[in-house]
């Protein structure tokens, strides 16, 4: 009975099935896929998108969207690289970059609430604005983190290991746990779901939904900044075009995880699975040496199939 229940629950979780099927198919096609080393690689590669997608989950749950994440990643990464190169303490650099990302997120939130802009439009503005600032700031050239003790230590955040597992994987797990906890066990988390499914009823319940939105966009900004730190630390430099298009992978992960674009419905576990599906696909297509043009075609098809499967489930009557 309990086994049956478990299987039933599993069958209802379409994203998980897609993940499992994809993984099984790929392992059969290429035995190198299911080696321990490759699995760790997938997890490490997924971590960047997973962190951004976690922030994006908040934005989409509230019925909004944050297109600016890629630019926030690039901007905070460039600032972090500059500070590290000048020999600033790594701890201070990380905190500064995170706060900067949070502040940009807060600005997005202000545009949405006080400025009454559609989130799509508001963040479409900031994505271009910030990318421009990055270009001005870096003169279009990569910013190296330099060759100091600080930069070596900073590099560990992106490239280091604790035990056999890469540091970014720990960070990703911490982010998932924290986000899960906030969404399921705190007041603000409850307010995020409430505002996302019926904003008016939430206002009538005496809740300031503008504050909830400011919180959500700040979280999204902070997560993008964290991803910026991870990317910069891994490469040892900040590329001026770092993060371009990352918002699309993040949105794809959230939607693959079953979160409704209309807001109010969705989970962090779903986003985690969504991010893994994208990670597995990227990895598998590389392993099988598929040309990068075909990779996008394949990715697009899998995303559409996964979302369609999920859609059909919801339409059952």
């Amino acid at each position: 009975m309990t086994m049956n229940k478990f299987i039933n629950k599993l069958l209802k979780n379409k994203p998980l099935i897609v993940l499992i099927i994809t993984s099984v198919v790929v392992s059969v096609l290429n035995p190198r896929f299911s080696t321990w080393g490759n699995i760790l690689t997938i997890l490490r590669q997924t971590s960047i998108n997973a962190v951004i997608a976690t922030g994006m989950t908040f934005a989409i749950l509230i019925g909004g969207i944050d297109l600016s994440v890629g630019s926030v990643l690039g901007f905070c990464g460039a600032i972090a690289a500059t500070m590290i190169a000048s020999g600033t303490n790594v701890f201070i650099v990380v905190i500064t970059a995170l706060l900067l990302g949070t502040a940009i997120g807060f600005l997005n939130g202000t545009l949405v609430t006080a400025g009454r802009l559609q989130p799509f439009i508001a963040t479409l503005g900031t994505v271009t604005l910030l990318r421009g600032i990055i270009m001005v700031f870096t003169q279009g050239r990569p910013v190296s983190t330099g060759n100091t003790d600080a930069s070596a230590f900073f590099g560990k955040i992106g490239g280091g290991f604790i035990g056999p597992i890469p540091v970014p994987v720990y960070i990703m797990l911490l982010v998932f746990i924290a986000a899960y906890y906030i969404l399921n066990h705190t007041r603000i988390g409850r307010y995020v779901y409430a505002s996302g499914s019926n904003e008016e009823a939430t206002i009538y319940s005496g809740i300031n939904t503008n504050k909830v939105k400011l919180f959500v966009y700040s979280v999204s900004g902070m997560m993008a900044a964290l991803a910026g730190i991870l990317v910069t630390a891994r490469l040892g430099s900040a590329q001026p075009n770092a993060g371009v298009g990352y918002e699309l992978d993040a949105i794809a992960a959230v939607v693959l995880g079953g979160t409704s674009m209309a807001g109010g419905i969705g989970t962090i576990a779903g986003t985690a699975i969504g991010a893994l599906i994208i990670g597995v696909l990227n990895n598998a297509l590389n392993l099988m040496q598929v040309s990068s043009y075909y990779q996008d075609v394949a990715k697009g098809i899998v995303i559409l199939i996964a979302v369609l499967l999920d859609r059909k489930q919801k339409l059952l009557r």
Partner: protein
Amino acid sequence: MKYAVISMKHITKEFSGITVLKNVDFNIYQGRVMALMGENGAGKSTLMKILTGVYLKTEGEIHLNNEPVSFVDVRSSQHAGIALIHQELNLVKDLSIGENMFLGREPVSGNGRILWSKLFNDSKYWLEKLGLNENPRELVKNISVGKQQLVEIAKALSADAKVIIMDEPTGALTPSETEKLFQVVNNLKTEGKSIVYISHRLHEIFEVCDDVTVLRDGELVSEKPIEELNEDMIIEMMVGRKLSEQYPRIETEIGDDILKVENLSNQFVKNASFTLKKGETLGVTGLMGSSRTELMRSIYGIYPHHGEIYIKGEKVRIKSPKDALNLGIAYVTEDRKTNGIIGEMDVRENITLSSLKKFTGLMGVVHKGREEKTAHKYIQKMSVKASGTKQLVRYLSGGNQQKVSIAKNLISEPEILILDEPTRGVDVGARKEIYDLINTFKAEGMSIIVISSDIPEILGICDRIMVMHEGGISGFLEQKDASQEVIMTLAVGKDV
């Protein structure tokens, strides 16, 4: 001799193992109006959704003109001439009347160009048939709800509907619009159309219906011609027990002023001044457009306003619902779906939403155990019919959603409770329960404002009545001096 255009036989419907309709027979007769009655949750909507092809039946047969048919989707039932007019009208507000009427079946020329003049001329023909002198090019959002209702009927007729199902059609209509609708229904009857009329308003049933079918708990109680019935008999069939008294008003001790509003004005309300005493139930009524709801929502902090509000003699500023709740004012909204409940959340989460602070500890962490306990207590106190605190609110019936909405406001422990149309769309049995709850709150010393357009209800449960007309207060009446006539006189803006 009655001729059944549609006859549904032995209809059974199960949703994942739960039977919601059991062996129900239902007939729709040519040229007659069939009332479909039953408490919320009795299975009326499910039955109609099966007839219109929204749901598939588990067992049973549907006969159209004595031929068995099967409606697998909405299109196939529409094709058979069945039209459903929803309680919440399904019109596209930003399109014109004509565009709405022919949406999806616009007349086109050979090369696919829409024949606008034909579309609008045809629209005009059907509108005039219903006595509606609107320009079909007018946008739907610019006409009253009553006229929108008639547009829905015109749309159904233009699609050659033979059976028209009206779900709570008078819910948002003024008395004169209701009269107009009844005339239309009578005309349709004489033209041989068949009508299913779903309403909780008993007196309407006696005004327009020819036959009555009553459902209870998913089963057929009885089908009878209206001549063989009276109101009490219908109520008894619906609830399955005798209703001793519909409005059980209790006398309580009335204290000093608790709320005093002076010269409140904004875009809706003109110089409204009134007081509410401790332990008092104040009824607020008026016609559509009297801004009763807007006045109360202004006090609740939804709309900005000028003027003064005093609570227990102290002047207060209310700029948001949060301020109001902190001052002990709770407002149960008239429109549950839009701003009362959150359908995608469960009963527990809905009940605690406005007072979540009480259940939160360090760092904003919610104590789910305590929350669960409280929610459970309120479910029992208010006898909410739900499978548990984890059930999603959108699966509850209207009356139970209303109870959840009231429970949410009670947890904030208000001293002043404003109930806006607390029984709209709520069935007879649950209505009585809501009146009993109001009395319980009253006995506990709460001060209550009840907004309602149901005048017998206002007369039945309130100590004092305030009547509004076009944004102003046109008079106050003590319960003993009030009558339906006096209230209507004030409501239309005449002096008594």
